[in-house]
């Protein structure tokens, strides 16, 4: 495994590819981008096959001194929660390149380059085991995304992209101070060293809150979610997909990697806050999604609701312990959250791609402008209905697995938490099916719908691949759950210890 630096390759290969695409120019950009994205995906596969699922330790490690003055290391490694997300990222990027193939007419080279560079940076986020390296990737990601929304976005793109940038930038700067504080206490930016650092309660609470702002904005959690619908609506299809499928996951990943293990006592203390915010997202945002007139906005709100499940699953740890006296249920909840993250990556990506398919033909996202699409686009309809069902959590699709695990675990915590979480099955079905009803079914609404062409081979390819992924995770989730198990048990372990000085 030490033979070659696979993680470095996963970070720098797409970035190099992005630069080559820029040099190659607009005409060659598409094939070159496809080659690099597929290559990166292929390179990422050995992570799965060579992964030792029985260990929670970091694998494929690389460590080099980087900035000596501050003891910052170029330290990479993956464990059971990072590895699936990296593969999800390399997978989705291939689809994005295919999805943008004919659609992007304005500066395609810059478009493809932005996504490839973003892919490398996001792989860096998941692979970084040095907190400062993580932060650098975490922030660097904003630059390409800012340009993607701003250059290729819709009418209101400038507002949306600046809002997106400032929200996330504002969220993360407090985390920077927390990291510096912990470095000053412990003398190291290595994440593993921060796990062992003893911290007083006040410091822990402040650090926890700073992480909550940083990752909460990213997830996004209610009430700092308002940037997401704007960003989604204005972003080009590829931008929406990467936002929903990958970027939101970074927030959830951050909670597992930073908040719970680094400041467990504060997390225990403030777990009610996160659970409250998560439930609000699940219930209230679900209702908000119900009244949307814009398809992308509707899916954006449903993303927020689904991510509420993720954070709920992560933070049920303490409530489950209080009720059952053991941490066994916690592992289930956290696994549910992780499965939900991966599954949401597929489903939301697919939903946005479907909307993109419609938008490319009709140039509107208004639900009212559609109706009876099933009559003119039967193959598309099959895919769209499948993904919509997955979005509501139909058994047999990936959406079911995560939600079911979280709801199951939340019964061990508190009946009312479980009850409120389960309402999503109704509300979620409500807004999704109503969307399907209005857009897909019924009589042909107008001439434009009557003129629609069904999906072409290119569109069929990426939708079929995603449909396969959704069904695979839905019918056979065991491999995914298995690779994460050891890591999640370890995180629950870390999250339930106490780090207050003087104890132990």
């Amino acid at each position, binding site marked *: 495994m030490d033979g070659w630096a696979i993680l470095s390759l996963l970070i720098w290969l797409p970035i190099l590819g992005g630069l080559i695409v820029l040099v190659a120019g607009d005409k060659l950009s598409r094939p070159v981008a496809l080659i690099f994205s597929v290559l990166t995906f292929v390179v990422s596969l050995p992570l799965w096959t060579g992964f030792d699922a029985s260990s929670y330790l970091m694998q494929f490690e690389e460590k080099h001194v980087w900035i*000596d003055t501050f003891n910052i290391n170029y330290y990479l490694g993956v464990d059971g929660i990072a590895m699936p997300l990296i593969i999800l990222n390399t997978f989705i990027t291939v689809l994005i390149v295919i999805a943008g193939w004919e659609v992007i007419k304005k500066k395609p080279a810059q478009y493809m380059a932005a996504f490839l560079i973003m892919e490398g940076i996001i792989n860096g986020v998941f692979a970084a085991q040095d907190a400062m390296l993580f932060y650098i*990737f975490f922030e660097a990601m904003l630059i390409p995304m800012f340009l993607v929304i701003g250059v290729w976005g819709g009418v209101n793109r400038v507002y949306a992209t600046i809002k997106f940038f400032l929200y996330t*930038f504002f969220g993360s700067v407090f985390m*920077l101070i927390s990291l510096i504080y912990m470095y000053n206490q412990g003398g190291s930016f290595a994440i593993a060293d921060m796990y062992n650092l003893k911290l007083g309660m006040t410091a822990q609470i402040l650090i926890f809150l700073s992480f909550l702002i940083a990752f909460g904005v990213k997830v996004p959690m209610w009430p700092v979610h308002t940037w997401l619908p704007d960003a989604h609506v204005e972003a080009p299809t590829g931008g929406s997909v990467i936002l929903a499928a990958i970027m939101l996951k970074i927030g959830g990943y951050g909670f597992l990697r930073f908040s719970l293990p680094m400041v467990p006592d504060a997390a225990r203390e403030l777990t009610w806050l996160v659970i409250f915010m998560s439930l609000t997202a699940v219930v209230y945002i679900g209702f908000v999604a119900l009244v949307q007139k814009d398809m992308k906005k509707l899916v954006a709100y449903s993303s927020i609701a689904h991510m509420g499940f993720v954070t709920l699953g992560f933070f049920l740890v303490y409530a489950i312990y209080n009720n059952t006296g053991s941490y066994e249920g916690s592992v289930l909840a956290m696994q549910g959250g992780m499965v939900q993250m991966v599954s949401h990556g597929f489903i939301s990506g697919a939903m946005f791609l479907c909307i993109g398919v419609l938008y490319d033909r009709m140039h509107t996202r208004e639900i009212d402008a559609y109706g009876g699409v099933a009559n003119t686009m039967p193959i598309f309809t099959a895919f769209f209905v499948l993904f919509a069902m997955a979005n509501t959590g139909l058994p047999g699709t990936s959406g079911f697995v995560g939600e079911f695990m979280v709801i199951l675990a939340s019964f061990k915590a508190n009946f009312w938490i479980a009850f409120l979480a389960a309402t999503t099955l109704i509300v979620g079905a409500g807004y999704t099916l109503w969307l399907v009803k209005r857009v897909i079914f019924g009589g042909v609404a107008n001439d434009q719908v009557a003129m629609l062409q069904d999906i072409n081979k290119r569109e069929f390819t990426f939708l079929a691949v995603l449909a396969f992924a959704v069904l695979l995770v839905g019918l056979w989730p065991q491999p995914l759950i298995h690779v994460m198990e050891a890591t999640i048990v370890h995180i629950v372990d870390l999250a339930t210890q106490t780090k207050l000085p003087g104890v132990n």
Partner: protein
Amino acid sequence: MDSVMNFALATPEMFLLAATCFILLLDVFLGEKCRTIGYIAALGALLTTVFLVVSSYGADKTEAFNGMFVSDNMSVVLKTSVLLIVMGIFVYARPYLIDRKIFKGEFYSLSLFATLGMLIMISANTMLVIYLGLELLSLSLYALVAFRRDDGRGSEAAMKYFVLGAIASGMLLYGMSILYGLSGSIDLKGVASYVASQDIMSNLVLLFGLTFIIVGLGFKFGVAPFHMWVPDVYQGSPTPITMFLGSAPKLAAFAMTMRLLVSGMEFGSMGWQQMLIPLAVLSLVVGNIAAIAQTNIKRMLAYSTISHMGFVLLGILGASEPGYSAAMFYVITYAITALGGFAIIIILSHSGVEAENLDDLRGLNDRHPWYAFMMLLFMFSMAGVPPLVGFYAKLAILQSVVQAGFVWLAVLAVVMSVVGAFYYLRAVKLMYFDKPIQDELLRMGTGFNALLTTNGFLVIALGLFPGFLMALCVEAIRVSL
């Protein structure tokens, strides 16, 4: 090693003085047509001086002329940076000057004298020599600001700069005279030993003198509330002069602060720390918030400079070695970034039309993607977004501030950086998201483009590998104190 007349130590300064006089004469004899020779001679003189400076790197701290002049690693690093930055300015300035028909020999001789002033400031070891260097710098700058004689706004800016600068120098001199009166020494070592024997917080006269010194330094740095001259002078000066004002002298001001406050009054840090805190806070707040309201790009960069100098003060007020080296790293990298930013304004100013408004950036990506990308790098670096160098500069400062126990200052600084991010983003927005309002071809000479590319590359390279320069700064501060 203390030597009374150790001329060797001041070789770079003496060489530069001789070369400057030579270039001054050269210009007279060669006349209009051979200006390029003067330009090349000026670059050659600076480059030779760089070699002379660098050759003394690594030596122990050495004094000369009865302790009036000092050479240490800090002075070598800062002088090298100043000289290289001035060389960059010369290259960037040339097309602008030719375009405006002010490609005169005086530009080079005045700039070289200003550079000499900075070198003297950096190596000064007594209050008198500090003042000498400062005045040589300031007087040359006043003349440079008024370089376009027939431009009303330039003359107005020069007038403002001169009056306020003179007041500031007066303040500084008054503070110095009080220190001299108390300690009986103009030598910083003498001052230091006096301050060490006093409890600064109860010695009212000493505090009084210190206040005046801080006011003078504040003026020269251009930090709030002594920042009033900055936007007006930035706006009124010809762009290459703005570039000069906004880059190299900040390094000299940093050196002056280090000599006066740290070498001279380290034991009084209790006193100046408390005075610097409000200056830093005000600069961060005023600089970042006022910059949002600007439509003129030079004024915007002026306010942004104010906020960046607030960051430098944050590093200094930690009164610790990590803080000083962080401030040094910050000031050097800021100068590099600012240089690039002003170079883009020079590109946008074409014959007869000054690029002044932010709107001139509109659609730069359509007009010239490479220049737009360079400007993107400079803007994001100033905003402090990794992996560009501006982030590490801020990181180092924040680290020292948190270490010094001022967590609230660090929080304020990052919140203000978010505010600041807005107007840098606006510049990027104009370049990338908007349509150009003019489509005149932008074309610059090879030397200019090569330098700009190097400049942009430095902002990335120092961002990806900041370790080297950081280690250099840490070492320089460690050896020099």
